């Protein structure tokens, strides 16, 4: 029995790995395109951020007091021009991106500041365009500059800077033991999503062709008239598909790793990533593998069942797309969800695998959670296998014509 299972699996793997086009489209192209796309994303987003940060803000102002003009001049990233403009002209200039910010001070700003006891507070009006990044950045710059001015003014009124200091704040990070550190939080929440999607996407194309495609082409029926149990035929296909999914996921993940020197800026919570962070303990590696292999089992059997129900490759694609959407939704929910969610989530198949992987990468890996994922994954995989086996016995499914 095991010999026949391996025979089918080997034939399926041979079908994939001796087809240059399949190798390129299923393993090499995803790796290369992921590496290029993520690198480009990192480079382009990094450039855009750098550009905003180094951009000299074009600030126009009216009645700008000398004290504030001095503060602005001290900041080399702001270029101030004093001009009196109508509201319409300001809005046009902002919309066209000709200026980044316009600020209007009360004509008697300085005297109102000096005579603050009269209770009259001067008005400062700022105008910026939420459509332009430079303008948004200018708003942030001007706000912090004026906040600084407020501090200085308050200190002057009270006589000493120490009077505005209400307390001393010391915020310190606690020392986290090496085994609990985990990897960068950004990567820890993103990797489970990528692993999940890569496994499903890797198995999807080849799985559809191997099952629905073989049915459609009539090559499956040729095997059905051999003295081999039909469940071994689907079992062999599922086994080979698992190997394909793992290899495809690894190659796609390799693409992510290749892109890290450029993409770390967008994926990492700190803006950088050291490969040494990926050096996990053998226990964590084992737990991660358990959670990941559970996904492989569930996804591959799910794809097999849906491909069997379909009578053509086209139909199989239509059936599998909603499942792919679910996989993506669960991945994004885990990526953007709270790390301290309800315990119920830890019992939901697929989602709990993602939670487990996230926790392991964050340094909070749990043997109990990994075992729960293993149990739920095995249960789902077995149910799917039984369904697949049942379908193999249905002549309408295996021999629909």
């Amino acid at each position: 029995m095991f010999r026949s299972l391996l025979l089918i699996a080997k034939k399926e793997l041979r079908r994939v790995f001796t087809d240059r086009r399949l190798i390129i489209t299923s393993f090499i192209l995803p790796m290369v395109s992921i590496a290029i796309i993520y690198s480009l994303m990192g480079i382009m987003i990094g450039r855009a951020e750098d550009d905003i940060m180094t951009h000299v803000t074009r600030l126009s102002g009216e009645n700008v007091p000398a004290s504030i003009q001095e503060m602005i001049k001290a900041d080399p990233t702001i270029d101030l021009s004093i001009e009196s403009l109508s509201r319409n002209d300001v809005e046009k200039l902002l919309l066209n991106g000709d200026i980044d910010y316009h600020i209007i001070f009360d004509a008697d700003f300085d005297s109102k500041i000096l005579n603050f006891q009269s209770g009259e507070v001067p008005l400062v009006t700022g105008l910026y365009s939420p459509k332009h990044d430079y303008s948004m950045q200018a708003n942030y710059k001007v706000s912090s500059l004026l906040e600084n001015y407020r501090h200085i003014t308050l200190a002057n009124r009270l006589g000493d800077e120490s009077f505005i200091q209400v307390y001393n704040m010391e915020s310190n990070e606690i020392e986290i033991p090496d085994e609990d550190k985990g990897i960068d939080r950004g990567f820890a929440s993103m990797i489970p999503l990528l692993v999940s999607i890569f496994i499903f996407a890797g198995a999807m194309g080849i799985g559809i062709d191997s099952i629905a495609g073989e049915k459609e082409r009539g090559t499956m029926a040729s095997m059905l008239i051999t003295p081999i149990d039909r469940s071994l035929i689907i079992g062999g296909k599922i086994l080979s598909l698992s190997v394909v999914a793992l290899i495809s996921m690894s190659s796609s993940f390799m693409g992510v790793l290749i892109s890290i020197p450029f993409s770390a800026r967008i994926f990492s919570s700190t803006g950088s990533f050291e490969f040494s962070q990926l050096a996990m303990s053998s226990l964590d590696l084992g737990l991660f593998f358990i959670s990941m292999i559970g996904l492989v089992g569930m996804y591959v059997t799910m794809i097999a069942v849906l491909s069997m129900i379909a009578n053509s490759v086209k139909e199989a694609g239509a059936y599998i797309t909603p499942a792919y959407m679910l996989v993506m939704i669960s991945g994004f929910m885990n990526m953007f969800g709270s790390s301290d969610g309800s315990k119920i989530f830890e019992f939901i198949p697929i989602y709990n695998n993602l939670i487990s992987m996230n926790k392991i990468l964050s340094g909070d890996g749990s043997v109990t959670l990994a075992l729960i994922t293993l149990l739920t994954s095995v249960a789902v995989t077995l149910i799917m296998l039984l369904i697949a086996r049942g379908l193999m016995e249905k002549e309408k499914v295996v021999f629909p014509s």
Partner: protein
Amino acid sequence: MIEVNGLKKVFQLSKKQMKVNKTSEKYKVAVDGIDFKVYDNEIFGLLGPNGAGKTTTLRCLSTLIAPSSGTIKVNGYDCVKDPLEVRSQLAFLTSELKLDTHFTPDYTTRFFGKLHNMDEALIERRMNHLFDYFGVTPFRFTKIADLSTGMKQKLSIAVSLIHDPNLIIFDEPTNGLDIITAKAVTDYLLELKSKGKTIIISTHMMHVAEKLCDRIGIIMDGRIKAIGSLGEILLSTGQGSLEDSFFMLYESNRGEENV
């Protein structure tokens, strides 16, 4: 020996099929309780028009589909209860069964040989014999996708006969073949018979049935209308040729339908 008793096969039609067939019936009786026997070392032919139930009968015999009722026994093994045993004893050839065009004839034949639990030496021996007979040897390592239609058909025959089965079921053996390939196939069927094999074919061609078959079962609308040797059929219908007998039965069947 093959014993078919009360074989009935009913298909449930999908809405699409009902629309295509312009019928409101949800079920279609493809084979309607037929009985026949095929004796060892004979060529038995199921002769009938398109849609008579020939292919469905052969699919049931080869265990690809299960009968709705009735029994089929192949050398004592029940097609429903012992499908693996039945399949190990037969070869089923039909144009609907295809080979993966990505592989070579050599790999494909070895693969199917292993599925039949054959060892490498036996596979090699049988493959050499079949490839030589059907002229596949020069294309042994050529991708099946690059073979001509006739060569693909010959390869399919070689692959299905790799395990040297005692029972060969052949659905429309000469359908779609050029005259030379068709001759090679019919000659090989006669050679198989001479080696003691039992052969069942389906055909709608009178000359194929006349030339090859020891006994013929004429099937129409899922029912066997006449069965026996050519001489017995001519005698029972009172006609001078198989063609005349066939059309006489066809007309009488149409008459029954109209009644």
